[in-house]
């Protein structure tokens, strides 16, 4: 029973058909209607034709403009904003909160867990927690021969597998003291530089996706696919190729490889122009990346941060120039350098690195030397296929190389190459047997992830993902 409050008391106590005949003078027309509906349901009198129009909306019912104050109306319409929150500095200083990002967060690029201590929207402390992808690959490497080693290490940094194989092979060759023929060296440079292109393109895709430029993701994968098609044609696999091996490469380039490289060299620059149109002057992109995740050169030195992060901070340090490997010093290329060390500079720098790598690939293609694709050192390389048909000794030799492996002289060596993520080093200890005594891989992502707290502290939590993506960590490389 919910009679209108302003109805005369006598009528409330005696709700009857009389009320319909004698409406109260003070009630408005609407109140009469309301009463009519009430009586229809309670007393069973006949329903009006338009009864449905007058169902009550309770507390949410809009009142007439006259009934509400002008101020309340303005607030309802959003013209006036009343701020009744009070910020108490004494309380908020201590109000930090620890949240876990990962290990299953889609933007952690694998299984990285970040423990963030946040105060409001600001990150105060970061602790990267790794090891979720640890599979003991360094221990596995001790049980594999030197020839099988690249199969193992290629799976560490799975976005730049050729670099892992190259570093391992170069280290083994340093211990063996074998000379690699020029064609094998050129093929190695061709494959690694195209791998750098593929890796950077994938970085563009994921960085775009993490910042919200979703079409960038499709574009990056699209161009990378051209490179992977070529890798598949040459090595048989899209990733984890085991193509670069101690002594040379696994097989010569297939017929018509120039056309495939030419296709990469013509298609990828078109894609790069698309990216620049899409991102370089995009205000959202600039807002999300400029001044985000800054690291200074001194911090890079202290934490061993290398690669595009170091160069974006303004240090022209590229192992291809400083400690050249596999004959890369004979090709002409520039080392782009950033200025601010932020995410935007890393983007511009990687874009330029892709162009430089394409330039190297073109030079390699045009000057590809003739010759053997692996060393003629019979200790490392099995006899040619034709010899196996003629000679039992050649067959045994072939068999022994692939089962027992070849003996590598005792010694220790550290060999580093410039991977797309930075200095990729392999520390190899041989005890004079066919298997390495110790394989240690210095992954660039390991050092770069360690420096995440430097880049993230005191910036907004919304920039976490942008910063993390700009580091381009590969967790297979971090955890090994």
């Amino acid at each position, binding site marked *: 029973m919910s009679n209108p409050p302003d109805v005369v008391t006598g009528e409330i106590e005696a709700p009857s058909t009389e009320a319909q005949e004698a409406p109260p003078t003070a009630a408005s027309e609407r109140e009469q209607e309301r009463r009519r509906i009430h009586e229809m349901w309670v007393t069973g009198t006949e329903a009006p034709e338009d009864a449905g129009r007058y169902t009550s909306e309770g507390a949410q019912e809009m009142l007439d403009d006259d009934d509400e104050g002008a101020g309340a109306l303005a607030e309802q319409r959003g013209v006036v904003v009343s701020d009744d929150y009070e910020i108490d500095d004494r309380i908020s200083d201590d109000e930090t909160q620890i949240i876990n990002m990962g290990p299953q967060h889609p933007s952690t690029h694998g299984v990285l867990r970040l423990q963030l201590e946040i105060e409001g929207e600001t990150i105060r402390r970061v602790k990267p927690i790794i090891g979720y992808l640890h599979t003991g690959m360094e221990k596995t490497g001790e049980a594999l021969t030197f020839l099988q080693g690249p199969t193992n290490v290629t799976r560490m940094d799975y976005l730049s597998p050729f670099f892992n194989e190259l570093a391992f092979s170069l280290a083994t060759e340093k211990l063996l003291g074998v000379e690699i023929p020029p064609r094998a060296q050129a093929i190695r440079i061709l494959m690694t530089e195209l791998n750098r292109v593929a890796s950077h393109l994938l970085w563009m895709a994921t960085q775009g996706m993490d910042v919200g430029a979703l079409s960038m993701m499709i574009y990056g994968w699209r161009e990378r696919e051209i490179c992977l098609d070529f890798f598949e044609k040459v090595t048989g696999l899209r990733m984890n190729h085991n193509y670069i091996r101690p002594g040379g490469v696994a097989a010569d380039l297939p017929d018509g490889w120039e056309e495939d490289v030419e296709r990469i060299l013509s298609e990828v620059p078109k894609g790069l122009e698309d990216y620049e149109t899409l991102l370089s002057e995009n205000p959202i992109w600039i807002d999300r990346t400029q001044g985000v995740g800054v690291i200074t050169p001194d911090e890079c*030195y202290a934490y061993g*941060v290398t690669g595009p992060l170091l160069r974006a901070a303004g*240090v022209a340090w590229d192992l291809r120039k400083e400690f050249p490997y596999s004959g890369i010093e004979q090709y002409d290329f520039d080392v782009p350098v950033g200025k601010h060390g932020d995410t935007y500079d890393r983007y511009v720098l990687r874009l330029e690195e892709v162009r430089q790598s394409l330039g190297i690939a073109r030079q390699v293609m045009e000057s590809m030397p003739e010759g053997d694709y692996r060393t003629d050192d019979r200790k490392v390389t099995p006899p040619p296929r034709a010899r196996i048909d003629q000679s039992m000794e050649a067959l045994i030799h072939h068999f022994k190389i692939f089962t027992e492996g070849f003996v590598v002289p005792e010694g*220790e060596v*550290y060999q580093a190459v410039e991977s797309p993520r930075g200095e990729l080093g392999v520390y190899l200890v041989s005890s004079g047997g066919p298997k390495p005594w110790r394989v240690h891989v210095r992954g660039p992502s390991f050092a770069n992830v360690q420096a995440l707290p430097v880049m993230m502290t005191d910036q907004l939590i919304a920039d976490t993902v942008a910063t993390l993506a700009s580091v381009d960590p590969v967790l297979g490389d971090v*955890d090994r």
Partner: protein
Amino acid sequence: MTDETTVPDDEAVDAAPDAAPVHEDEVLAAVATAAPSASFGVSPAGIDTAHVDREEYVAAVAAAKDAGFQMFTDLCAVDHLRRRRDRFEVIVQLVSLTLRRRLAVHVAIPGGDPSVPTITPIYQGANFYEREAYDLFGIVFDGHPDLTRLLLPDDWEGHPMRKDHPVGAVPVQFKGANKVT
């Protein structure tokens, strides 16, 4: 060629162009001053190596940093079980961007007392690497700010990269996998 502590200087000369005798090289002389026990050599990759005693290890690394090796790149532990008198070895790889050269500082650690002072006050980046070496080899880095397991779970027992920790020591966690005799 090996990097044993007894590598004579004349053997190292032909391996790399900058393999000058120790005291003619300013950088190595600085390390030699801080760590008088240091012996120098050159690895097959042409990288200068300095083998130092455990007591002089931190001083040698600090001297190398002052001599221009501003960047820390790697710290690697090796288990030389039954190969050498001192079972463990820690190798620190340093880079000088200004001198364009590398230096590897080797320190031997006895198996009975696997501990060595930390170099995190000198290079912050050694933090994760020392934790990794502790995790996988059980080498204790004295003075490390947070010496906990890095790659393995906290409740893991043992240090699997040691040579006496066999592959397959942890049973495969599949149903009935251990019943095979």
